[in-house]
């Protein structure tokens, strides 16, 4: 490195000041102006987090939000070169730390997971779309699904209810299917039950519905194979209408 210790120190002190608001005595800058750098840098980070987490921002009192963002930016070295990806680091940071805030808002991690997943699904790179035919046999043909999806599980219904009104009594097992529509690029979410997460995961592995149902039969409270099929197929048809199930495999 050609850089001398002192030059490096100055750069490090200035960057550190922008991250922490702590001004080193040895930093040789105009003290009447350097605060603009802290302000400008912090605003960029804060804006980016607000736009990624509008629901969390709305839930937390402004002071708590501000403290959280300041703490994150001071303690965490952001790695994303693309600023739209930086908010994921905020989520990971919150997950990794025990905090009084999370005790006060037990649904916080779920809410952040929900909000980040929406950004991620909207922005992520295109997946290769497999070829498929639109007509087929629900039971005996392999179904082809939209490759741009995620299934999330929550302890709190952050995808259904305004976070402000969610209480301890809402705690349970919730599942959410999120996917990106090919034509519009819009992200769609669907609340699904646990059994459908298993079915979708198996469909994704190109297992035929008949085989999925056979494997599940013993574990579920259905009177018969027929009643299972009668329940499941309409739901799958709905997923096809919405553009999650694309069609059937061309054998």
């Amino acid at each position: 490195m050609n850089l001398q210790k002192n030059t490096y120190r100055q750069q490090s002190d200035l960057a550190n000041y922008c991250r922490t608001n702590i001004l080193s005595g040895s930093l040789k800058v105009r003290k009447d102006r350097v605060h603009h750098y802290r302000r400008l840098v912090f605003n960029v980070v804060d804006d980016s987090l607000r736009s990624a987490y509008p629901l969390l921002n709305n839930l937390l009192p402004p002071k708590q939000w501000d403290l959280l963002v300041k703490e994150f930016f001071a303690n965490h070295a952001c790695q994303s070169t693309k600023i739209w990806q930086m908010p994921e680091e905020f989520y990971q940071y919150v997950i990794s730390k025990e905090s009084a805030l999370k005790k006060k808002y037990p649904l916080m991690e779920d809410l952040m997971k929900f909000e980040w997943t929406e950004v991620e699904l909207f922005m992520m790179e295109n997946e290769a779309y497999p070829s498929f035919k639109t007509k087929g046999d629900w039971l005996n043909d392999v179904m082809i699904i939209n490759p741009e999806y995620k299934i999330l599980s929550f302890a709190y219904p952050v995808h259904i209810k305004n976070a402000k009104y969610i209480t301890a009594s809402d705690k349970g097992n919730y599942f959410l299917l999120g996917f990106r529509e090919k034509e519009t690029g819009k992200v769609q979410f669907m609340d699904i039950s646990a059994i459908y997460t298993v079915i979708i995961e198996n469909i994704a592995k190109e297992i035929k519905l008949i085989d999925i149902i056979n494997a599940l039969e013993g574990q579920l409270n259905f009177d018969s194979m027929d009643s299972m099929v009668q329940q499941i197929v309409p739901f799958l048809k709905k997923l096809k209408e919405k553009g999650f199930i694309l069609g059937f495999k061309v054998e």
Partner: protein
Amino acid sequence: MNNYIGIGFRKEFSDEFLSSGKLKPGFIEVAPENWMGIGGYWKKIFKQVTEKYLVLAHGLSLSIGSPEDLDWTFLKQVKDFIKEYDIQIYSEHLSYSKCDNAHLYDLLPVPFTEDAIKHISNRIKHVQDFLEMKIAIENVSYYTPVAAEMTELEFINEIVSEADCNLLLDVNNVYVNAFNHKYNAIEFIHGLPLEKVSYIHMAGHEQVEPDLIIDTHGANVIELVYDLFDYTTRFVRPVPVLLERDFNIPDLEVLQDEINKLNRIISINWDLQNESTKKHIPAAV
């Protein structure tokens, strides 16, 4: 109308830009960081824009002034992006936005010192070797010098000369710095290696204190900056000129008026009909 004046492409106006035809830039400029490694809606929009307009790239995260090593993974992504969209100019800021392995997402001023010149020139050379093209380095606005041992002008000159790179001359930044640090903008312009200018930026700013202007890109270009542009372009060969507008985006007609105004100035100052200058035309759209 020539194709020398471009616009910084923003998501905020993409819909109207593509559908209305109110804004007719000669080319567009984008930050690779905002458009690479994405898919879905924005990828589709970006594809439409790049099919219509020539694209130049102006980076945000390279952090050429960082103390630490270059991020080669990132540079590989930039290189692929440049190739994919056939980008003729990739520029970056003479500043740093990453330090101690942490990105800051804004531009911090580098100490004007001899060792920083060596360090940064070397980094520019490495980037140019890797990308197999010259890059253009932009003079940035700054609000305080940091442990400076020389003037900004000496610093820029030495870097451009040692790194053998091009200069992205931001005329608004010259104006802002001249105001903030009380020097003469015209003298500053004449002190720059004008033969190395390959690209020009124009933007608006905001005066926040009696003696301080912040480079916001959030307002129209002011008359005094147009004057400085008019003056400067008499001494620079024809190069692409970009209007930067990142915040408070007005009606597209207003941006087009600014483009027209820049066009009028260069039509007088540059002999754009002359065959020998045509090779610098950025966009034959």
